[in-house]
């Protein structure tokens, strides 16, 4: 059915006019009195009409709808060479509600041999629109081998899928809608709506008296209200001022306003407003308005992707979204849907066969509505925290902002799974009360600080306490890399081969108390290299080193790495008696992973307004936080941690070709278990503990490391490959004396040295160089005297 052009309005339609009645011959005084009453009445009516006109105009033109902010995940970029396997790609497509099909229609895909054929929807990104395309993506050996545009047969260098909607920011009780323009609405929907709800829409002036009469007759015969005679215009007015009272005054107002609307606006404007306004469902506190959102709410598809029977169902719902609720009253809904299809057939809107096929199909409504609540509440907490710096809460709820975040849904889901699986497994294996352990985890991209995943609860759908962002816990040995970095930044004084004393240490503090740090194994290890002290997380050697370097130097180092909290210069700080959150630890380790460049963790890339105008961009921000060469040394030591230190169990948990760097952290009485570490692509920090802060009998190595390992095994595709700064050289060292060794020296270790800092002397283990040995001992003694 073709839509007719709206007719031009004529001034004759002015509803404020009222006909003058002729008066019979009456006494003059009476006539005068009547005239006065009429004048007042007219003025009153005119005034009232003007008031209604104002009301309806401000509804229609003013801020028509308050729209919640939409929050999107990062879009998946597809290009040859990208690490991506079929499972990942199909999972991503499913998140975007792509369906398996012939991939001719947008939002569909199919697998064909080693290729995936998909028809993308396109998306208006801030930096340029991504057009809808039909693509063939060839996957081989866990990588994208080729991307071909099927229309042209040409290879595509880079394709962006549309970003997945991950959250809406609503007011507590509110209307929700996805605005559509009339030209985006399938013509079948418009013709069905008009056929069923208002056959004379393009002819009447707001009211359809024949429909009213028809409805009145039908209702009279039935003895109750079975039919409505409201035009779409009247329904729109009713939706604007949604109240359920059916008083005469209400009806009168509605009629006047409908006439006013028709007088002032074009038919298509009214229709578009109707399509976006009409109430079509309820999801808890959230009212589903408009066909755009209803299409997603019931079918998880875009309006232009709907089949005829789906369109018919939406039109059927106009009459009563609750009465015909397809989820709770499927039969009733189906009967009404079929009625809509019949009407369409009768009016020539659909062919008989199409209707027959459509009727044979099920309702196709998902059992559960897609939640208006985000599936990723922990990540959204971070987004809101960062948004709050630049936007008012009210604007977020009403201005329809589009917020593009850094969330990687695949990595988020992998993190959630690793946390849930491992905590349950640890509880089982160690006889810990089921459900007593909790966790917080953050994953970020090593190179740019983008936060890709946040888990704040072992049940990731719980929107309660967010341990990743808000649980401040003692970080234990996680602090140690900052101590060593502060030392190694002075290459004339300290190298990884520097011998440190791990013998008993007692310090009298300012308040007169004594502080005697102990090692986790309660042993003393004598003279150890700085490398071994960090690799095995020796407390006493580290405390001595930190005191030598100076507490303030260590604090400054931590702050340069991104810890912004005020830190007090107590010696116990050196062993991690400082309470920080997993997110804060992520910031600090980010700087190490990025080779000494500090980048604040970012969860948002861009914010656009409802019209697609860019409002803010959160640009990559880089600060040099440490000498890259010193950071390289720390990373090398943290890599050793994962090979032969407190994190050595990673060797059996991670593939051999995935070198990583990391550090365990354990606090007094095993209350907190930490692991922070990075590969070449991702950084992750995991905390495991109990909410009541009770001892749980787990160390960083037994509690947090397994979660971290599961996660990295799943997501990381690029092993640690730190850039070796100019002048850094790797040498064999004899850990017994910190001197240079040669191949064959027992226990010799490779260590990196900043230019000019390598020990000159040779260890006695190196055969046949007595002169060098003598020199080396002189040099060595000189170093420590």
């Amino acid at each position, binding site marked *: 059915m073709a839509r007719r052009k709206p007719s031009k309005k004529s001034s004759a339609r002015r509803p404020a006019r009222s006909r003058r009645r002729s008066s019979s011959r009456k006494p003059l005084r009476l006539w005068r009195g009547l005239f006065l009453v009429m004048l007042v009445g007219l003025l009153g009516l005119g005034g009232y009409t003007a008031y209604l006109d104002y009301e309806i105009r401000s509804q229609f033109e003013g801020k028509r709808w308050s729209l919640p902010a939409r929050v999107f995940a990062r879009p998946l970029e597809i290009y*040859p*060479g*990208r690490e991506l396997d079929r499972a990942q790609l199909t999972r991503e497509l499913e998140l975007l509600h792509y369906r398996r099909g012939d991939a001719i229609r947008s939002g569909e895909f199919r697998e064909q041999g080693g290729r995936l054929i998909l028809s993308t929807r396109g998306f208006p990104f801030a930096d340029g629109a991504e057009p809808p395309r039909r693509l063939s993506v060839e996957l081989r050996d866990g990588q994208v081998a080729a991307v071909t545009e099927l229309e042209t047969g040409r290879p595509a*260098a880079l394709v962006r899928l549309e970003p997945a909607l991950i959250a809406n920011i609503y007011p507590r009780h509110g209307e929700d809608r996805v605005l559509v323009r009339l030209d985006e609405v399938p013509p079948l929907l418009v013709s069905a709506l008009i056929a069923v709800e208002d056959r004379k829409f393009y002819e009447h002036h707001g009211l359809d008296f024949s429909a009213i009469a028809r409805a009145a007759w039908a209702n009279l015969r039935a003895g109750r209200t079975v039919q409505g005679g409201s035009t779409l215009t009247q329904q729109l007015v009713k939706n604007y001022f949604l109240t359920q009272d059916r008083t005469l005054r209400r009806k009168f107002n509605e009629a006047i306003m409908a006439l006013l609307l028709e007088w002032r606006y074009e038919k298509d404007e009214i229709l578009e407003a109707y399509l976006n306004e009409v109430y079509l469902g309820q999801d808890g506190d959230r009212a589903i308005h408009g066909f755009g959102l209803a299409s997603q709410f019931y079918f998880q598809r875009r309006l232009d992707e709907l089949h005829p029977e789906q369109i018919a169902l939406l039109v059927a719902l106009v009459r009563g979204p609750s009465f015909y609720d397809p989820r709770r009253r499927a039969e009733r809904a189906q009967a009404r849907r079929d009625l809509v299809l019949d009407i369409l057939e009768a009016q020539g809107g659909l062919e008989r066969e199409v209707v027959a096929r459509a009727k044979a199909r099920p309702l196709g409504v998902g059992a559960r509505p897609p939640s208006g609540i985000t599936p990723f509440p922990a990540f959204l907490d971070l987004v809101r925290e960062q948004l709050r710096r630049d936007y008012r809460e009210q604007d977020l709820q009403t201005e329809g902002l589009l917020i593009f975040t850094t969330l990687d849904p695949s990595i988020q889901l992998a993190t959630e799974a690793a946390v849930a699986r491992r905590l349950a497994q640890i509880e089982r294996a160690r006889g810990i009360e089921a459900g007593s352990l909790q966790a917080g985890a953050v994953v970020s*991209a090593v*190179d740019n600080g983008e936060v890709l995943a946040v888990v704040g609860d072992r049940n990731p759908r719980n929107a309660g306490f967010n341990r990743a962002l808000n649980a401040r816990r003692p970080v234990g040995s996680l602090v140690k890399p900052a101590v060593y970095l502060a030392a190694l930044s002075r290459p004339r004084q300290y190298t990884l081969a520097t011998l440190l004393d791990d013998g008993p240490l007692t310090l009298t503090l300012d308040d007169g108390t004594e502080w005697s740090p102990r090692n986790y194994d309660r042993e003393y290890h004598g003279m150890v290299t700085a490398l071994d002290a960090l690799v095995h997380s020796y407390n006493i050697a580290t405390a001595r080193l930190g005191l030598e370097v100076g507490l303030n130097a260590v604090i400054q180092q931590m702050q340069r790495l991104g810890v912004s909290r005020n830190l007090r210069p107590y010696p116990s700080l050196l062993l991690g008696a400082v309470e920080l959150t997993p997110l804060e630890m992520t910031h600090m380790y980010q700087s190490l992973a990025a080779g000494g460049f500090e980048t604040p963790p970012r969860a948002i890339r861009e914010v656009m307004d409802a019209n697609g105008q860019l409002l803010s961009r959160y*640009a*990559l921000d*880089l600060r040099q936080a440490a000498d890259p060469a010193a950071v390289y040394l720390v990373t090398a030591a943290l890599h050793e941690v994962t090979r032969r230190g407190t994190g050595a169990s990673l060797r059996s948990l991670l593939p051999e070709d995935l070198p990583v760097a990391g550090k365990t952290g354990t606090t007094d009485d095993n209350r907190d278990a930490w692991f922070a570490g990075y590969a070449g692509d991702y950084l992750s920090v995991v905390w495991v503990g109990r909410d009541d802060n009770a001892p749980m009998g787990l160390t960083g190595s037994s509690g947090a490391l397994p979660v971290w390992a599961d996660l990295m095994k799943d997501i990381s595709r690029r092993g640690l490959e730190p850039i070796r700064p100019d002048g850094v050289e790797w040498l064999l060292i004899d850990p017994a004396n910190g001197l240079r060794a040669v191949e064959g020296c027992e226990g010799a270790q490779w260590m990196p040295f900043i230019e000019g800092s390598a020990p000159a002397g040779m260890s006695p283990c190196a055969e046949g160089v007595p002169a060098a040995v003598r020199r080396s001992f002189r040099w060595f003694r000189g170093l420590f005297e």
Partner: protein
Amino acid sequence: MQRFLRPVPALVAVMLLAACAPPQATRPTAGEPGLVEEGVAAPLPAPDARPAIARDPAPADSRATGSDAVVALMGEADRQLVAGNPDAAAATLERALRIDARDPRLWQRLAVVRLQQGQPAQAEAMAVRSNGLARGDRALMARNWRIIAEARRMAGNAAGAREADARANQLSGEPG
């Protein structure tokens, strides 16, 4: 500020001309003897004495990256920069960096964009990062030092700028 911004377009032009060459992989081959992999016996055998990261990384051109995608985005960023839209260019370069953060050309371009945006500290940090990835590409490093010099001038650090210029001249073989 005006005074310092003026030379930037010229710098951009220089870079656009010079930056099409791929980074040279001038890293020397491994000098130290590699270690034989030990058998994977028993629960946790002693790891190789020499960690994997101590070995020389594969040359730049053998790394699997989305190089076509990066080249396409670099071209796009250059067009945006020439069209006077540094914000868009920055967004495009960041997108490219998400694909390959080890390409020193991307960091260098981003440094130039930051200069255009009037952010000298950021420009210098990006150029330093580019230098860290340059793997001995002297021409690229010389350009980075020019950017650093420009950034320092913009920040009012004349002495630091001279020093950076000297480094650039040294690298490009010109007299200081």
